[in-house]
C-alpha cells in the first residue's frame, strides 16, 4: 500500500548541514581578501549573462531610436544644440574661474589640482535583488579600471568599482546599505559621513548634532578624506532634517544627485593623486 505521509529520511540533519554551510559561505563572502578574488571570478561568469539578458532591451531601444519621425529628431537635435550652447557658456565661465583659482593657489603655495581623466562606461546589468545596489558596467581590467575607482553620471557620484573582470566590472552604488563616504557641505565646509540605506532615492547622514548648521537644499560633495574619492564630486542634496531635542542627533536624509534609475551611460574617473590602486 502506498503511503500518503512520506517523511524524507535523514534530510532534517542534512538540511541543518546545508544551513551551516550557507552560513559559512555568507561569512566567507564578507571576509576581505578571499571575497575579492571570488567576486572578480563571479563578475567574469555573470557579465556575459547580463549582456545577453540586456540585449532585447537594447535592441528595442535602438529600434525606438530608428523609428522616431524626422520632426521628433529635429526637435531633439534642437534641444541638444541648446543644451550644448548652455554647457559651453558655463564652461567659459569655469575656465576663467579655473585660471583665477590656479593663480591664487600658486600665490598660496598650494599644490595644483589636476583634472581627473574620465572614461565612458555603459551599464550592462543591474543586480536583480532590489536590496543590493550593484551595477555591472562594460569596462574592466583591460581598460585600466581598478578596484575603488569612482563612477559618476552627469549629475554626481554614483558608486565605486568593487569587482573586476577583463571586460566588465561591478560597481557598488552609494545608496547600498553597506556604503559610506565622507562628504562636505559646500556652503560652510562642514564634514559629515553619508551612508546608503538600501533606497535608491535617499542617503542618510549620521551623527549630525541638533545644533549643526545644516539646511534643506545644502549640496554635499566628496571631502577627499579617506583617500577614496577626489574632493569636490557632487554626491547629494539635503532633503529632510528632523531635529528632536530629546535625541542627541538629528535625522537627516539626502537625495543622491546621480540619476541611478534612469542613466545607462556613466563616467569612470581616475584619481591617481588621491587613490592609487595599491592603496585601496
Amino acid at each position, binding site marked *: 500500500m502506498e503511503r500518503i505521509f512520506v517523511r524524507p529520511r535523514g534530510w532534517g540533519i542534512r538540511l541543518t548541514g546545508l*544551513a551551516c554551510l550557507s552560513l559559512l*559561505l555568507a561569512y566567507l563572502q564578507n571576509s576581505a581578501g578571499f571575497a575579492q578574488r571570488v567576486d572578480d571570478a*563571479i563578475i567574469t561568469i555573470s557579465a556575459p549573462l547580463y549582456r545577453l539578458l540586456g540585449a532585447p532591451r537594447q535592441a528595442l531601444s535602438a529600434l525606438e531610436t530608428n523609428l522616431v519621425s524626422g520632426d521628433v529628431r529635429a526637435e531633439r537635435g534642437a534641444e541638444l544644440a541648446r543644451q550644448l550652447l548652455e554647457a559651453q557658456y558655463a564652461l567659459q565661465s569655469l575656465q576663467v574661474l579655473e585660471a583665477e583659482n590656479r593663480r591664487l593657489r600658486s600665490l598660496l603655495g598650494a599644490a595644483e589640482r589636476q583634472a581627473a581623466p574620465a572614461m565612458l562606461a555603459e551599464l550592462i546589468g543591474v543586480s536583480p535583488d532590489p536590496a543590493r545596489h550593484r551595477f555591472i558596467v562594460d569596462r574592466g581590467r583591460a581598460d585600466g579600471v581598478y578596484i575603488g575607482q569612482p563612477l559618476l553620471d552627469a549629475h554626481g557620484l554614483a558608486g565605486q568599482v568593487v569587482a573586476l573582470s577583463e571586460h566588465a566590472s561591478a560597481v557598488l552604488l552609494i545608496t547600498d546599505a553597506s556604503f559610506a563616504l565622507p562628504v562636505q557641505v559646500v556652503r560652510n565646509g562642514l564634514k559629515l559621513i553619508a551612508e546608503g540605506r538600501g533606497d535608491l532615492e535617499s542617503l542618510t547622514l549620521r551623527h549630525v548634532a541638533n545644533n549643526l548648521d545644516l539646511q534643506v537644499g545644502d549640496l554635499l560633495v566628496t571631502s577627499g578624506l579617506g583617500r577614496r574619492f577626489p574632493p569636490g564630486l557632487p554626491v547629494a542634496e539635503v532633503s529632510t532634517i528632523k531635529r528632536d531635542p530629546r535625541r542627541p542627533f538629528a535625522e537627516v536624509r539626502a537625495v543622491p544627485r546621480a540619476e541611478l534609475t534612469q542613466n545607462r551611460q556613466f563616467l569612470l574617473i581616475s584619481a591617481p593623486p588621491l587613490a592609487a590602486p595599491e592603496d585601496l
Partner: protein
Amino acid sequence: MNAGWGSWVPVPLALALAFLFALWPLPSAAAWLRPAVPALAAVYLGLFRPHQFSPATAWLAGLTLDTLSLSTWGATALTLAAASYCAQLLGRRLFAYTLVKQTLWVAVILGLAGFAGNVLQSFSLTAWPWWAVLGQALLTALLWPPLLYLSGRVSPRAALV
C-alpha cells in the same frame, strides 16, 4: 534508455526557466514585486520529482543563482533547500486539500524558506523588510494554481470543486 534520459529533462528545464525569470532585468520600482519563481520551482519539483530534486540539488541550484545574481552566498541556496525540504515533508498530503488551501500551504512554505534566506542576507546588510518577504511569498503562491494547470497536474474544473 531514451525514456530514462527524457524523464530528467524537466528538472533542468524548470530551473533554467526559473533562473531566467529571476534574472530578467526589471525596472527598479517593480523589482520588489518579482515573484520568487525559483523557490516555487523548488516546491514543485520537491513534490513531483523528489527522486530527481533533493534539498541538496536545490541548494546547489540556489548557490548558482546567488552567484549569477551577485547576491549573498547561500541565501537563495538555503531558501531553495528549505522550500524543497518542506515540500517533501508535506508530500502528497498537500493534494488532499482544495486548491485554495494548497495555495495557502505553498505561501507558508515560501514564507518560511524566504525568512530563512533573509537571515543570511542580513550578513551583507541587504536583508529585505519582513513585509517584503511575506508579500513575495503570497504573490508567488498565487502562481501555484496556474502552474498546476500548465503542467497538466490539475484540470481547470478542479478549482471549482
